[in-house]
Structures are given as C-alpha cells and as structure tokens.
C-alpha cells in the first residue's frame, strides 16, 4: 500500500514542481479561456441582453470560463503522460518502486492541483465582470473544481495511456476539447438546444461542472428558472435531468461518478500497457 500512497504524492509533487518551472504553460492555459470570455462576452452581450435576475451575458458565461480553465489544465495530465513517455522520464517513474495505480492517481492529482491553482487565479477577475466573491463561495467552489478536475484528468489520462506520440495526442485533444466545451452550456443554456444535442450534452461531465459553478456564482435561480426568449418562450438556464432541475450537490455527484469511471478505466488501461 505504501507504494501506492508514495506514488500518488511523489508524482503529484513533481507535476507541481514542473508547473512552477514552466511558465509558458501557465500563461497559455489562461489565454484561451480569457480570449473566449472577452470575445464572446463583448460580441454577444448586446444581442443577448439580460437574463432573469439581472445577470448579463458576461456574468452568465464567466463561471463556465472558470470551468473551461480547469478543463484545459486537467486534460494536461494526459499530455504530461504522453510527454513523459516521449522524453523518457516515464521510464524513470516506472522503474521506481511505485505502484502503477499510485503513479496514475498521482498524475491525476497533480493535474487537478495545478488546475485548481489556475481556476483560483481566474477568480481574480470576478470583480471585473461585476460578480462578488465571498469566503462561502470560495469554500463551495474549491471542492467542486477539485472533483471536476479529477474527473477530467481521468479522461486525459485514459486517452493518453495508449498514445505514443505527442502530435497524435494533441490531435485527439483538439478533437475532444471543442465539443467538450461547446456542448457543455458554457455559452448557452443546455436546455435551449435541439433534443439530440441535449442528449449529447448530458453525457458530458463538463455540463454539470459548468452548471454547478454557475449556481455557486449566480445562485440556484440560474438552474431552476428561466431565460426569456423572443415570443415570450422561456427555458431554464440550468440543467434538467429526467425532469429534475439539478442542484450543486447533485451536479458534483454526477461529475464524481463519471470521473470515478474514467479514472478507473485510466488506471486499468495504464496497468495493462506498462508492466
């Protein structure tokens, strides 16, 4: 058992060391979400108008942008596995007296902690979009982000265990990241899209992450209630699963469940590939 615990913290520790050492990575994982926030925010604010409860469009997408930062950073856990394999460091890890399960969980934890740091830094711009931060909000947000990032690290690692080259993995990531982000309700309410897209979105763990974070910032009204559409039609801005509007805890539970499956699959796949 000690080989598993040690594996987890030693590998996670190194991910953090490396995160600190590699500033370009830190900056690049901020740029993308920030550009989205500015461009989409500025571009759509006018035509979208106000949502119920005096929430403007930038405030509506801002929680999703935090989720997006965390996702980009978590998926990096997968990149890190592929890069380590390509540049040989993985061998150093594999010949050490550490269990395979520990190594993979350590990668996931390391990826999540860095994602958590990035997500927390993104909090700093909340006042700029007119949202206030309270200690209670931070207390709710951090565990949510941790669960979300662990789940997505699981996804990244699962994809990475079979990939041999960085190029191949990057390609696969691009293929995954866009649908993952665009079909998660970051930019529009999931309930407002055609049924087939809704179904796809509801299999996406990020959908629940965005919903949970949005509720933490904007209050539960963002879930149960409505956005006004032309012609007095209304839709919920939250996520409704089997006719049930999801609350924060329920959202986190769904992400956790999906994440547990992804992580288990990742561990299994990795242990099979590396003796």
């Amino acid at each position, binding site marked *: 058992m*000690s*080989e598993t615990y*040690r*594996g987890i913290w*030693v590998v996670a*520790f*190194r991910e953090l*060391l*490396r995160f600190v*050492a*590699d500033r370009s990575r830190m900056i690049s994982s901020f740029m993308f979400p920030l550009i989205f926030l500015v461009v989409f925010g500025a571009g759509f604010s006018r035509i979208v108008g106000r949502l119920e409860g005096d929430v403007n469009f930038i405030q509506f997408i801002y929680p999703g942008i935090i989720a997006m930062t965390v996702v980009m950073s978590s998926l990096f856990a997968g990149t890190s596995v592929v890069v380590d394999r390509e*540049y*040989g*460091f*993985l*061998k*150093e*890890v*594999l*010949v*050490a*007296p*550490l*269990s395979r399960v520990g190594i993979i969980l350590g990668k996931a934890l390391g990826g999540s902690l860095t994602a958590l740091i990035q997500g927390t830094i993104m909090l700093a711009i909340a006042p700029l979009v007119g949202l206030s931060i309270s200690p209670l909000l931070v207390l709710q947000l951090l565990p949510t982000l941790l669960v979300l990032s662990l789940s997505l690290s699981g996804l990244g690692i699962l994809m990475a265990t079979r990939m041999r080259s960085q190029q191949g993995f990057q390609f696969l990531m691009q293929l995954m990241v866009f649908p993952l982000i665009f079909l998660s309700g970051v930019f529009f309410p999931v309930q407002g899209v055609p049924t087939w897209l809704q179904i796809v979105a509801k299999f996406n763990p990020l959908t629940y992450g965005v919903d949970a974070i949005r509720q933490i910032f904007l209050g539960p009204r963002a879930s149960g209630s409505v956005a006004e559409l032309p012609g007095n039609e209304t839709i919920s801005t939250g996520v409704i699963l089997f006719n049930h509007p999801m609350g924060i805890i329920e959202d986190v539970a769904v992400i956790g469940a999906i994440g547990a499956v992804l992580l288990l699959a990742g561990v299994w796949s990795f242990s099979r590939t*590396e*003796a």
Partner: protein
Amino acid sequence: MPIIEVDNLSKQFGEIKAVDGVSFKVEEGEVFGFLGPNGAGKTTTINMLCTLLRPTSGQARVAGLDVIKDKNDVRRAIGLVFQETTLDDYLTAEQNILFHALAYAVPSEVRKQRTKELLTLMELWERRKSKIRTYSGGMKRRLEIARGLVHLPRVLFLDEPTLGLDPQTRNRIWEYILDLREKQGLTIFLTTHYMDEAEHSDRIAVIDHGKIVALNTPDSLKDQVGGDVLTISSDNNELVEDELRDKYGLVPEVNNGTVSVRVPGGEEFLPQFVRAYEGTLQSIGLRRPTLEDVFLHLTGREIRDEKVDERALMRNAMRARYR
C-alpha cells in the same frame, strides 16, 4: 552467492522468441558485459531483469529477489542508466535527484549527504541549480549515473552508458564508474556497442538470436577466436584466398577489399607466407584478436555495422529541436 541469477529465462512476442531460454550468473562486485547485435535480445533481457517486462517463462533473481514476485524490492535494489535520457528537462539537477530520492523513499538525511557526495564526484555540484535543458550530453549522462546511485543500489545497470558521447567524455565517465565499483563494491551490468568499453568487463556474455552464445573473460574469449588475425590486401585477393585455403588449410574471409584470416602463431606464419606468395602484396597486418573479432566470430556480424549510433544521434537532434 551470485547477485544476479538467471535461469532459463524466455520472452516471446507473438511468434517471435526474443529471448530463448537464457541462463547465467553474475557475481557481486563484478563488471558484467552483455553484448549482442541489435535485436538479439539484449534490451528484452535487461527489461526483464529490471522488472519492466514480464518473462514468458523461466526465472530471474536480482539480489536474491524474484523479478516477478518481488518487483518493488528488486526496483529498490537496482539503479538504471538507460540509452536515452530519462531526466526531466524542465527541472534542475537537484530537483531530479529529489524526485528520485522521494520515489525510492530515501530518508532526507541520507538524501542530502548522497546528493552532495555524488554530484561532487560527477563534478556537477556547482551546476546543481541549473535546469537540465542547459546541460550537455555528457553532463546529463553523469547526472543520470549519480541519480541511479542515490538510493544505494547493489546493482547498476548501464545500457549503452556512453552512446553518442565524445571520446574524452566517455573516458571520464568510465573513470567514475570504475571508481564507484572500487569504493562501493557495486556490481555493474553493462551493455555497449563500443568494444574498447567492453574491455572493462570482468566477464562478457554474448547473446545472439535470443541465446547466450559465449560467456567468459575477455581474454578467454579472444583465445577462443583461434589465434592471431592476419589481414592482407593485394592486387588479386582471390589468389591470396586460394593460396591460404589450399596451401595452408585456413579459412579466409573477405571484408571491405581485404582478406582476413585467423592463424595460430601469426609471427611465424607471416614470413613463411610472404616468401611463398607469387603475386604482389599491397599491405599486410598482424594483430592479436580484439573483442571486435570475437563478436564477428560469434555472431557473423560486425558490431559497428549497425545503424544504432546514427539513429540515436538523429533522435537526440530531433528532440533538441522540438522541445
């Protein structure tokens, strides 16, 4: 008691038997050379010994521990330096060693003392705070050797430890390695393509087609080749060949336009041959057999024929570019 015991070890990949019933023993404190052409089963054997690959059948024990059942104990007992670098480029030398020490659960007091001792020995102490990216190939290799020793292993596996390094750096690294063996009673398991490097071995095993084809001290192996090596080039190599074969009953070989033949008591044979030969000779040479000859004799291939160096150099260049 031998520190490595390999008993009828085999590894099969699909139809291919990469390692086919290999058995040998390595004594504690020995420098053990493990040679063979590419694809002969060298790396597969090493990977099984250091628990990276599960044997198909057979047994291997390192430091008295079973490589299948006691994986993590074997890992603690060995240090590894691979052909390709396995350092984290973004971290400093000190951080790389720190990671290693933590992974092997080395107590922090021991870690501090060993880090200083080993980095000083490898002349890297001054550069301990520099990122690996700024290191030269020789420095990286030295750091890897230092790192591989932080947890006080009993066996150090060196897989092509000086591949792609210049001759001076190679010599330096060998001084360090032999010094370590002297001071720490370390057992060294070595693979190399450089035959002068293999000379450092106390004993050498040659593997070909997954089987051990010879295992002995370098001197005995050279004796096995059967006498001195005579190399002759002339206007008419066929005539030389015929004469050697018909008149003296020898087995000549032609390589790159020269005829080479192994003959016991070369000093006496040489004048005798020159006197009797009717054609024109261009050059003639006589030397004691080298490990290169041993290798050629045993495997039918020259170790340097292989593309390994070129490929490794290219890979390193590519890495440097795309990093």
